[in-house]
Each structure stands twice: as C-alpha cells, then as structure tokens.
C-alpha cells in the first residue's frame, strides 16, 4: 500500500551553506526499517528534482530511529546569497513528508 512519508515519520530540516539537511525520524520504532528501505538517496533526489542540484547523502542513526539526509547544492547558493524565500531549507523536511512510500 502506498502512503505519504508523513504516516510513519516526522522531520526537521535546516542548512549548512548551500546544503540542506533533513532529519527523518520514525514515529514508532517499528517504522524505522520501512524508512531505511524506502527513503533512499536516489528516491529523495528524484523527489526534489531540479531543486537539488548536487548529490544526496544519507546517514543512519538507529539509536534515534532516524536518518539524516544531506541535500547538496539545494538552496540557490545558500545563506545570504540565495534569493529564495526558504533560503535555509526550513520547509524541506515538511516537503519530504509528501513523498509516497510503500508500506
């Protein structure tokens, strides 16, 4: 069955320069395996399309039931250079909650 990521996770996102990071946290411990399987760097890169110009990296934090995603070259230059409303990627975590996953 396909559902939005919001069914199994919550997120927080922010910036480091032109890189946005998204922490994806399982709402229940048993959802972590699903997140690991479904929220791959390739899927995330595809989901954000042109918004992410560089690669997507993923780190695992099993102790928190969480993954950390780094979206490189994703903020229009980042910081004070960027002309975007969301120059710091504050809303990228919420955006990712719309990604469809299989459960």
């Amino acid at each position, binding site marked *: 069955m396909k559902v939005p990521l919001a069914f199994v996770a*919550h997120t927080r996102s922010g*910036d480091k320069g*032109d890189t946005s990071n998204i922490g994806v946290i399982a709402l229940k411990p048993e959802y972590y395996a699903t997140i690991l399987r479904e929220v791959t760097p390739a899927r995330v890169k595809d989901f954000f399309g042109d918004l992410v110009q560089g690669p997507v990296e993923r780190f695992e*934090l099993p102790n928190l039931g*969480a993954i950390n995603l780094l979206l490189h070259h994703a903020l229009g230059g980042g910081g*004070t250079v960027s*002309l975007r*409303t*969301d120059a710091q990627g504050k*809303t990228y975590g919420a955006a990712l909650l719309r990604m469809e996953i299989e459960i």
Partner: protein
Amino acid sequence: MIRIANGQGFWGDWLEAPVRLVDQGPIDFLVLDYLAEVTMSILQKQKQEDPALGYARDFPPLIGRLAKKLKDRGIKVVANAGGVNPAACAHAVLKAAPGLKVAVVHGDNVFERIDEFLAKGYEMRDMDTGHPLSSIRERILSANAYIGAFPLAEALDTGADIVVAGRSTDTALTLAPMVHRFGWQPDDWDKLAAGTIAGHIIECGAQCSGGNCQVDWEKIPNMSDVGYPIIEAEPDGSFVVTKHAGTGGRVHTDTVKEQLLYELGDPKNYITPDCIADFTTVRLSDIGPDRVGITGIRGGPRPETLKLSISYSDGWKAIGTLVYSWPGSVAKARAADRIVRERLVALGLTFDEIHTELFGLNACFGPLPNNATPPNIDPPELQLRIGVRGHDRKAVDRFTRELIPLVLNGPPGATGFGEGRPAVREIVAYWPALIPRHEIETRVEVIS
C-alpha cells in the same frame, strides 16, 4: 548536578526568555547564543564606523535588568555577545550592572592577522568549494576562529559573574560550565562529547522544548509562555533535558530528537574545537513529564585544526514583490514576470541570477515532480516575488525601479506596492576554512 539554561537561540530571539528562565525556577548558569555566521560581518562593519560598537547590543541592558537576581542567587552568565568587540561589550555590561565581575575571552578575532596567515603559507581554502582565500582577499569583511569551551571555563574559574566571548561555538557555551564545575580534562572525550551534545540540544532555545515541533504541534500547551530548555548535568556526563515546572511547551523524546538532527552533518563526526562527538551513541528516554534522560554518549579526540568563520562581500541583491488578484492571478503574475525580464534585457542589464517565485503557490519548495501544481488553480490572490543578484550595484538598483510601474503599465489587478521600491542590499557571503590550532591563542581578562 548543575542546571544550565539557554535563553537565546540567536540574536533576535525572544527577549523575555532569559528573564523568565531566571524568574520561573532554579538555574545555576544562563547561556546566551547571539552569533550566526553572518552576524560577525554586520558587527565588524559597526565597529569600523564606531570603535565602541561591534557586539550584541541587546546584551548589556538584559544583564542590567537581571543584575540583582543574578548576584543574589549566584547565577553565572556565559554569552558570545562580544561579537568582534568583546572588551567594549564587557565595559557596557559593567556600566549597566556595576556590581558584577565580568571576564572577557580574547583571541578569536583574526581579522587583522589574515595577511600574516597567508604569508605563513596557510591557504585557508573554502571548505565547500576548495578555492584559496587569496582569491577574495580584498573583499574580506570579518574573520574569526571558532573557540571551544576551555577558554570559557577558564573565564568562569576567575569567579566572574558574566563571561563575554566573541566567536565561541554555540555548544561551548553549555559545555564550559561543566568543564568549570566538574573539572573535566581536555582528553575526557566522552564527557566533552556529552556536554557538546547537551549544548547542541539547547543551542536553539525553545526549538527543543516544543517550538517548531511537528509531532502533535496543535496539542503542545501554552506556547505563549514556552519554557526555554534546561540541562541538568551530572559529573559523569549523563544529563536530563527539561524546563521549568508550570511553563508552556513540551520536552519529550520527539522534540529532543528533532533538535538532535537539526543542522547535523555526519552524525558520527560532529567536529568541535573540544572533541568529536558521536550522535549515534546517544541513548534517550522519557523519564518523567517534560524530562528526557540522556546517557551513553561517546566522543573522540579534538582536531588539530580550528575552523575559521570568514565573511566577504559578494555583490548586491534586491527582492521585490507585487500582489495579483483573482481572476487569473497565476497567469497575471507570470505575465508580469515576463515583462520585467524583457525590460531588463532591453535595458542591457545582466545579473548572476534572476529568481521568480509565485508566493502562495511555489515559494517554499515549488511544484515538486510528484506533486505538480494543478493546472486550473486560481487563488484569490498571489504574490509575485522577483529577486536579482549581481556584482554591478547600479544594475541591481535599476531593477528595483522596474516593479511598481507594472501597477499602471502591466497586467490588471496589481496591488500591494505600499512599501515602495525594494532596498538594495550587499551580499555578505560565508567562507569556512581551517587554521592550525596553535595559531590561535586565547586570553582571559577580568574587568570589575
């Protein structure tokens, strides 16, 4: 056990937060984080115009307001409010609170030493792009080394009531009281990592105690009196995240996990001047109402380099807006955007980037591939937001005159131009680099 509270997550955070932390319950240390990456350049400019400025000007009046309570209850304050002029900040604090002992940490500001470093052969390459610093030498606006907790702890060791630092790391503000009170050594890597992660959790103020929390956000109580976070630190490195009883907000594993992941890179290698902390070793559990217990944190040796925070001038930008109303607000805004771009071309103006958003439709993350905007959407109103940036200030200034005329000479239904033409702002860009640790010598000065 010592209680360390954070009452300021950035310069501009809630003015009442530090006052309420003092008034609403017991704390031993109040830490205040004022500096973002770009703040230093703003302060450097203020100092160039007036040698008595260049620090967070909210800080001295705050200490004046709290002085009697701090003294009566023995609460110590650690803040990086000093910016590029910690000594001037300290003197302003003394003026506002004459009975207090103030210690200043010097040595982070290397603005005057850049040529010395270049002459020694340090290239100070941009950690993101790899370009050498020499390529922007003439445009540098500020340069500071991130310093860690030990110089701040040394300042607390003097018996100071208030410690004023410049560019210390955010996490060092929280770790320093632990080093000071528990006597932790420079190679107690696990304990230093624990204090560093405690600092990471509270460095953004209420963002770990209910603010910006996605989980059941509508049910988080009494956010108008949100309790800012408090660390109850133990000498063995374990700690509890909590807030004062009776305050609003929430401290829960959900809120703390979100903050642990905020602005995180490689979780196994969280590099600070004090240690390398491993976020994959954090064990956390809900141990009571608004109490999260944390144990198990491991760390590794500190790096032999310190990070430099360098800012430089990188051109000019301006962002302007107009509002288009129903019917056809999307089509009207898109037409107006085309007209502006054609007029800029006709004027022979070029920019590094022209960026257009239809605010209300695609500003935050745009029509994502899997969630394309419905083709027939016709919102009651839509804000057209156009930004340009470039190195020719005159071109950017000329752009700011191209929006308001559209009210009369563009598509129908434009409004919302009341603020006039947009301001041209200098782009202050950030240049992270590394320098050998031995080049940075800190010094503590007591003023009273």
